[in-house]
């Protein structure tokens, strides 16, 4: 019940809450646990296995019993929940339950990154002293503590420091810390993980710290030069018969409830203590008005509690001491103290058992870390403060070594060693209250031959509860040691794993939920695809249109219509996602010769060539078309999914094997938007789109430039096709123009059908890392003239060269309407048992497969649950003579004004395409400046609306940018040792300005103006936004004005440039700009 006075609670205000439906009240300053005790609630739940009634046992994170459902959180310790008005709490029946149908929590959690010189975990006497010593030595300090106010154990006691109540000393230190600008104090913040290289993860009750009730938390990612652990100690119980009754409580908890929360956990108390702190608890309880019936201290006379008495509900009514019984409603137990070594152990530090303290204490550190105070067994308050000063000085690298600081005099007596008592014989003596594990259970484990405490843990489940054995772990070790006749130090502890306290998944996810859960890459045409009702598929992070259904079409219907357009009329595909790498330098051709299986050094300028690259193991890695733009300049393309992997791999060989080659690599994937115009009637459409090109003299596998466009005459369908590349800002206008001219938009599904009909393999579909070019029937692309290329030697390995490898074949089902299943197994017909291959691509009536030892005409069975008879055919189903790649052979000279379909419908209603006249404006409509759209154009309004005095956000569109390679370039932002990004001023007129595609030929560097979007953030709050997603140290004296670097923001790689004291530019790849803009707007909302 609640005391009239005393405690650090505000009795002038009443908070209402409910427990199991009953309306109760408490006060600000209460925890849910103290409020429940204040209202006389004794039973807070039933144990998991045995269903025994249990009461509040501790006053902190180590609580094994009072696990409740609180609001939308399924299981939290009531001792760690700050009381708020309106909390609804429920006891758990058996195990906690997750309701998969429950709506997502409404609390808004986020993350933040912070670097510091010294991280101090725990703001008790040692932690406060350490933070002060480090802070006053000038270090950047983060001090975190799980409680709303600093002081730790001092808040729960009645000690005097220098003759004044200890909280006064706490306040004086807090005032000095607040005066240090480089000290950041994070209350209500629990360090939950201590990982490699002094990386500490902590959870802050952030909304509570900003006076909000919405329950939002922040996951801090802290990187510290040095760490001081001042995590205190947990009192431990003794395993005696009936020690789980409601009314049995740790002595320090009873004392804390009385002193700090003004709550009496009982009226008549027996104290069972192996320590001096139990006597202090008895004194404080008596002073608060609790009748102390008896103090049982085995150190005095060997007396122990041998049992408990209970009423009908199971609540404590008395204790047995040998053959005596004593009536009481509170049994305060102190079995000794366990230094809270969890974080120390997580850091891989080694523990030792201290015989005097009867506890495991830190022995050897594994990282730049020191423990201070009770967490290393220094229990006296004054000694802990002195230890903290010394640790803080060490952590700050200060010579003062803590001597400059005054250690207050404390009125507590020198503590004497505890009794080495872990258990009292008898039934129902619980070692782990949460998992209902008794001494008898542990005996069964050792009786079954287990000697390792890890085995005992797994056998009994002791220590595996949500509390991770904070109160039970050491007791279990002591009991095992007693049973084995060993010392606890020989038995050792189980592994301490993060998190120290349970962390909700929602907190780990933070803001990476829903649309922000994974970065999404989109092309310049994405908005138009959406508007057209495209069905998308994910290719890596890309969203690609799979097909464009019209009027309720099924996928099959849409694909057949799209396919017909590409085969008989004209189609258009958004091919912007293909990886594009500019390869420059005197040795560019030699470099490509080494990485591709075929020759590129002999490719004439202006020509294109298809290439395959292999790993050193000889297996196909990627393929694509490479074009020679100039003597020393190539444009290589990669598959969409492998773009990053190929770019990284080329960089690897360039830097690490062939640094003497004069070659550099620049990704231009996002600079160019690509519209493939495909089909026998592609020429008039392409001619209308790019008027400056002579289409009558434009052979297959060559390339042209006109205005801002590059046009490649290459084909992935077997039909006449032009891939038109334009700077990304023209992409949408070009796409619209192509559709206006009658091209039927088609997606990746039709693309796959078209190429499968042509027998073109897709890397990752026909290949799986075990397939050579020869297996794909592409021996023709593997040069025998070159002395070497990556993978060449492997093609001569016995396994790679054996004749009975699986090879690419075509399959046709007997029933031409049948569609085989990709992945279906192939067996020799009839009734063959041995698998000889599998189906790699399957479309109606057409399939590709990799199969061994088969010949054209063989009959096989494709097994996908069904048994489908198939015939082996050539993988080239369509136009094996390549008669169609120059257009429809029946219609060999496409006239000007050739008919095309109505915009985008594929309808046969054709219209005339006007021939561009000589006097016509050479700049096509789509290339006019006012049609250019920057990547974040659609965000202009939302950026303006989200801007505030703290942070303004806007896009800086169309900044001219060039990437220049070479260590001496010396122009713009240096992104790497030989990598520069020159950023110019925006061109006059607000548009992109006039930049022909070939304009940078022969100049230093590559035009990448459309490759990245530029976002400008300015204002005093920008750092608070960036720190929620950027892992680098953004301290203004580290990331100084003018600094720039490449790093991550959210999950996007960015160039971060601090252009002014409060002004930053974020440069992000155009395809990721929308994702990052959404993320930034979301961050601004959470400021």
């Amino acid at each position: 019940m609640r005391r009239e006075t005393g405690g650090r609670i505000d009795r002038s205000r009443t908070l209402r809450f409910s427990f199991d439906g009953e309306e109760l009240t408490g006060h600000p300053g209460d925890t849910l646990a103290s409020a429940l005790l204040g209202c006389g609630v004794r039973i807070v739940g039933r144990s998991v296995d045995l269903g025994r009634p249990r009461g509040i046992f501790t006053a902190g994170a180590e609580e094994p019993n009072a696990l409740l459902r609180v609001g939308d959180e399924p299981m939290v310790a009531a001792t760690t929940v700050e009381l708020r008005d309106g909390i609804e709490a429920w006891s758990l029946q058996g195990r906690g339950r997750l309701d998969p149908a429950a709506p997502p929590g409404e609390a808004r959690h986020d993350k933040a990154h912070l670097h510091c010189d010294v991280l101090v975990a725990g703001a008790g006497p040692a932690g406060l002293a350490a933070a002060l010593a480090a802070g006053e030595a000038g270090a950047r300090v983060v001090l975190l503590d799980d409680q709303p106010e600093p002081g730790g154990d001092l808040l729960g006691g009645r000690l005097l420091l220098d003759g004044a109540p200890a909280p006064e000393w706490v306040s004086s230190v807090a005032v000095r810390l607040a005066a240090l600008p480089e000290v950041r104090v994070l209350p209500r913040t629990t360090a939950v993980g201590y990982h490699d290289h002094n990386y500490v993860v902590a959870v802050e009750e952030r909304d509570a710290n900003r006076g909000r009730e919405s329950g939002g938390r922040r996951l801090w990612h802290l990187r510290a030069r040095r760490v001081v652990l001042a995590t205190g100690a947990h009192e431990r119980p003794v395993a005696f018969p009936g020690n789980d009754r409601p009314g049995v409580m740790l002595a320090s908890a009873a004392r804390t409830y009385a002193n700090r929360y003004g709550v009496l956990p009982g009226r008549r108390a027996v104290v069972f203590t192996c320590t001096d702190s139990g006597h202090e608890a008895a004194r404080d309880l008596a002073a608060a008005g609790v009748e102390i019936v008896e103090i049982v201290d085995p150190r005095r006379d060997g007396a122990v509690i041998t049992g408990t008495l209970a009423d009908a509900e199971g609540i404590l009514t008395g204790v047995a001491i040998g053959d005596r019984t004593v009536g009481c409603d509170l049994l305060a137990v102190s079995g000794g103290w366990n230094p809270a070594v969890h974080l120390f152990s997580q850091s891989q530090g080694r523990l030792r058992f201290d015989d005097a303290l009867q506890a495991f204490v830190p022995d050897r550190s594994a990282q730049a870390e020191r423990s201070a105070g009770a967490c290393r067994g220094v229990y006296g308050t004054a000694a802990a403060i002195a230890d903290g000063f010394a640790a803080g000085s060490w952590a700050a690298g200060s010579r003062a070594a803590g001597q400059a600081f005054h250690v207050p005099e404390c009125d507590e007596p020198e503590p004497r060693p505890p009794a080495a008592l872990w258990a009292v014989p008898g039934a129902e003596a619980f070692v782990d209250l949460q998992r209902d594990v008794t001494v008898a259970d542990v005996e069964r484990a050792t009786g079954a031959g287990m000697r390792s405490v890890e085995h005992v843990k797994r056998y009994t489940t002791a220590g595996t509860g949500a509390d991770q054995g904070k109160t039970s772990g050491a007791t279990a070790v002591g009991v095992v040691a007693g049973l084995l006749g060993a010392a606890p130090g020989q038995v050792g502890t189980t592994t301490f794993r993060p998190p120290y306290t349970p962390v909700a998944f929602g907190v780990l996810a933070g803001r990476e939920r829903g649309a922000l859960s994974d970065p999404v890459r989109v092309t310049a045409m994405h908005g138009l695809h959406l508007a057209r009702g495209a069905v998308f598929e994910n290719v890596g992070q890309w969203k690609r249109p799979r097909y464009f259904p019209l009027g309720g079409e099924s996928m099959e219907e849409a694909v057949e219509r799209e396919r017909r357009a590409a085969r008989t009329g004209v189609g258009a595909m958004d091919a912007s996602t293909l990886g594009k790498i500019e390869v420059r330098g005197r040795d560019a051709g030699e470099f490509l010769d080494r990485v591709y299986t075929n020759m590129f050094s002999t490719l004439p300028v202006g020509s294109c060539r298809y290439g395959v690259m292999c790993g050193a193991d000889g297996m196909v890695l990627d393929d694509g078309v490479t074009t020679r733009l100039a003597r020393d300049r190539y444009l290589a393309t990669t598959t969409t999914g492998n773009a990053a992997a190929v770019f990284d791999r080329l960089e690897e060989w360039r830097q690490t094997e062939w640094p003497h080659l004069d070659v550099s690599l620049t990704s231009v994937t996002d600079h160019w938007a690509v519209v493939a115009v495909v089909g026998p009637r592609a020429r008039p459409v392409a001619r209308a789109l790019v008027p400056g090109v002579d289409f009558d003299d434009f052979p297959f596998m060559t390339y042209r430039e006109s205005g801002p466009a590059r046009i490649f005459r290459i084909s992935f369908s077997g039909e006449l096709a032009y891939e038109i590349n334009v700077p990304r800002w023209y992409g949408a206008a070009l796409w619209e123009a192509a559709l206006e001219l009658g091209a039927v938009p088609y997606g990746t599904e039709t693309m796959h059908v078209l190429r499968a009909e042509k027998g073109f393999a897709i890397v990752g579909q026909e290949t799986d890392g075990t397939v050579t070019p020869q297996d794909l029937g592409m021996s023709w692309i593997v040069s025998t003239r070159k002395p070497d290329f990556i993978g060449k030697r492997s093609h001569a390995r016995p396994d790679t060269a054996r004749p009975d490898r699986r090879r690419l074949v075509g399959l046709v089902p007997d029933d031409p309407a049948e569609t085989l299943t990709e992945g279906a197994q192939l067996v020799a017909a009839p009734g063959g048992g041995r698998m000889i291959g599998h189906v790699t691509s399957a479309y109606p009536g057409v399939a590709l497969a990799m199969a061994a030892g088969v010949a054209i005409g063989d009959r096989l069975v494709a097994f996908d649950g069904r048994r489908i008879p198939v015939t082996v055919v050539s993988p080239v189903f369509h136009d094996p003579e390549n008669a169609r790649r120059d257009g429809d052979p029946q219609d060999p000279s496409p006239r000007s004004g050739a008919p095309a379909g109505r915009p985008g419908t594929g309808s046969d209603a054709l219209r005339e395409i006007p021939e561009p006249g000589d006097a016509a404006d050479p700049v096509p409509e789509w290339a006019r400046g006012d049609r250019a759209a920057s990547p974040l154009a659609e965000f202009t309004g939302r950026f303006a609306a989200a801007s505030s005095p703290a942070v303004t956000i806007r896009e800086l569109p169309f900044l001219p940018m060039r990437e220049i390679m070479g260590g001496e370039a010396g122009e713009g932002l240096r992104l790497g040792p030989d990598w520069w990004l020159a950023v110019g001023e925006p061109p006059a007129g607000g548009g992109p300005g006039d930049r022909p595609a070939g304009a940078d030929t022969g100049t230093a560097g590559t035009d990448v103006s459309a490759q990245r979007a530029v976002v400008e953030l300015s204002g005093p709050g920008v750092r608070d936004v960036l720190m929620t997603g950027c892992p680098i140290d953004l301290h203004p004296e580290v990331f100084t004005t003018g600094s720039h670097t490449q790093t991550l923001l959210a999950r996007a790689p960015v160039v971060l440039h601090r252009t002014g004291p409060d002004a930053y530019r974020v440069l992000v790849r155009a395809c990721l700009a929308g994702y990052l803009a959404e993320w930034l707007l979301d961050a601004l909302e959470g400021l």
Partner: protein
Amino acid sequence: MQSIECPWCGPRDEIEFRYGGQAGIAYPRDPGALSDEEWAGYVFMRDNPRGWFHERWFHVHGCRTWFSIRRHTVTHETGPVPDTGREPESDRTGRGPLARGTGEAR
């Protein structure tokens, strides 16, 4: 989250990097002259020590530099690869020993 010291950018979180496996495995000068077994050794076989390991990292989300460090596979202590006393000729930028191989023409 390990902290990896990029020779160009300084210490960065591990997520900014791609791991590159064992360092010092040079591409053979003349693959055609190797026996199948020797070639398989280059392609497939790597050390897997318990203890110090020379390994390559690629600062993929930063400066795109390939580099080598020494890392203890048990404690995750890291440090620069010991100086071999020989500056690779290509090392114009002071970014430390080459990540792989000898840097010589094959």
